[in-house]
């Protein structure tokens, strides 16, 4: 008992340390180098000015401060929140659908968001318009899925999965159609690039938007994390254990959808994170959602920051995030499957 508690504690300490190291490191990395010393001084100075004090004597260049405040801060924060959101949403959905192969897109949130963005680009909306349209269509797609599932007479889980597949393919067909009629000079490349996922053009407002909505979704999931365990057993068992399954399921769907739609509307489509990160956390910390949700948040956020660091430093032009996560995620997933089948033969 104590051994276990100790190893979990050690695991979490390492995870938190890694998260903080990646967080700080991500500010330093990039085409414009900012020293760690400058980083601390600028942050301290910003804090002091925020509370009306004079701030530190400026020993850093103006460019360092601009890059830090306007470029890197929003980007790193958004990456951390998006990774945390997708992983926590994936972990919750996997429990709710009693299937470890489920990703945050199961109810159509990201395909809906992709369609919303493509539509906004087609209509020539500005950057804010794209984000809002994408977010609303993400929520709308999940709402549609839930409405169809409610109207059907199949059992709740099966009808939701089927309705999710249907709504997802409807919206991806819609996106294809928009690509077909879009102007091939500007709109089509913009849509294509958006769909591949990127944080290159992120601004302070986006970071604030995504962090507030992700916090609104993640905090209830963290508070309810023990109860999410009970959704992994059959419906009758869960009810007999004394929980209101339909209300809990609704709460999980609302939280996970809010986070996924907010994340995708800012970053574009980023696959694999929501599927692979919870798997890894289960390997290290077990199935229990008391540890699975917090570890998914930390590992997912850290992983996303690393991927985004790679996206902006690996080559001279930005690599889309969706491409990178697939390059990393797919081999890792194959490894997980092979490992799992080896385990079963023991």
């Amino acid at each position, binding site marked *: 008992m104590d051994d276990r508690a100790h190893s979990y504690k050690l695991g979490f300490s390492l995870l938190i340390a890694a998260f903080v190291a990646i967080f700080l490191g991500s500010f330093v990395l990039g085409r414009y180098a900012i020293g760690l010393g400058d980083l601390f001084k600028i942050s301290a100075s910003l804090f002091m000015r925020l509370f009306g004090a004079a701030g530190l004597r400026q020993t850093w260049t103006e460019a360092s401060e601009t890059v830090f405040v306007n470029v890197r801060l929003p980007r790193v924060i958004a990456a951390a929140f998006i990774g945390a959101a997708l992983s926590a949403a994936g972990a919750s959905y996997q429990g709710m659908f009693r299937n470890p192969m489920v990703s945050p897109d199961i109810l159509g949130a990201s395909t809906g968001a992709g369609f919303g963005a493509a539509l906004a680009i087609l209509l020539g909306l500005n950057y804010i318009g794209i984000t809002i349209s994408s977010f609303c269509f993400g929520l709308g797609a999940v709402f549609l899925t839930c409405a169809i599932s409610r109207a059907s007479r199949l059992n709740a889980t099966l009808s939701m999965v089927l309705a999710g597949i249907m709504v997802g393919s409807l919206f991806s067909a819609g996106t294809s159609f928009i690509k077909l009629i879009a102007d091939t000079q500007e709109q089509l490349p913009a849509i294509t690039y958006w769909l591949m996922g990127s944080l290159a053009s992120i601004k302070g407002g986006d970071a604030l938007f995504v962090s507030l909505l992700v916090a609104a979704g993640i905090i209830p999931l963290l508070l309810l994390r023990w109860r999410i365990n009970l959704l992994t057993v059959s419906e009758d068992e869960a009810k007999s*254990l*004394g929980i209101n399954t339909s209300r809990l399921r609704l709460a999980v769907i609302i939280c996970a959808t809010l986070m996924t739609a907010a994340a995708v509307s800012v970053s574009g489509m980023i696959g694999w994170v929501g599927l692979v990160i919870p798997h890894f956390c289960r390997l290290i910390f077990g199935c229990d959602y008391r540890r699975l949700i917090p570890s998914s948040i930390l590992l997912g956020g850290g992983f996303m920051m690393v991927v985004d660091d790679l996206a902006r430093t690996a080559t001279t032009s930005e690599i889309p995030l969706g491409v990178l996560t697939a390059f990393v995620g797919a081999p890792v997933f194959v490894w997980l499957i092979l490992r799992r089948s080896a385990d079963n033969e023991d």
Partner: protein
Amino acid sequence: MRIEARNIEFSYKGNKVLSGLDFSADSGDVVAVLGPNGVGKSTLFRCMLGFLKPQKGAVLIDGVDIRKMSSAEAARRIAYIPQSVSPVFNYTVLDTVLMGVTNRLGLFQSPRPKDVAKAVDVLNSLGIAHLKHRGCGQISGGERQLALLARALVQEAGVLIMDEPTSNLDYGNSWRVMERISALAGGGYTVFFSTHDPNQAFLHAGRVLVIKEGKVLAFGTPRETLTEELLSDLYNINVSLRSVPYGGGSITVSIPHG
């Protein structure tokens, strides 16, 4: 705890599944529920647990209608033990058992140290405490069934409902699980278990509830209730009963033949 089914009638899509079911059981009763496939045993259990609302009649636990309780209140009175199947997520035995305390936790609360101590006590009493950190996917079906029983016991409910508790177990594990179940009567529990084996009723149950076509065909002690005629009629095969010496006394066994 006393559980009473009062004149239950339940229809599904216009088909009558249960009609006029009337019976009751008290603390210390272990009731075997017998009846052919598709006769409404599972529906009856789901009505007793409050998952289904009978069109007529009611299920009362210590005089209170189960449908008028919240799910947490119901969970403190009646527990459900499902068949032992391999789980999707490999929770440890201890975590599985801890799920049973949820009805006494606040919405945002996790199990407390005293809940863990309670779970370990129950595991000890069932003789499977050494498995507490093993995954439920890595233990035998019989051990897993005992873990599910432990989960129901930490719920502190007086009535236990078991849907074919031995259906996925081998001969030895079935007997071991059934021994634990019949021992619960001494602890003041009211136990209902469904089975397809009349011998389990003779060996492990104090009373037997026989259901045919959604009605109570007979309810009483196994020896008086389960006659050759009744069993032959119930399962549509010829059944012979023989009395054999067993543990100082004698016991009836049922032998089917064409």
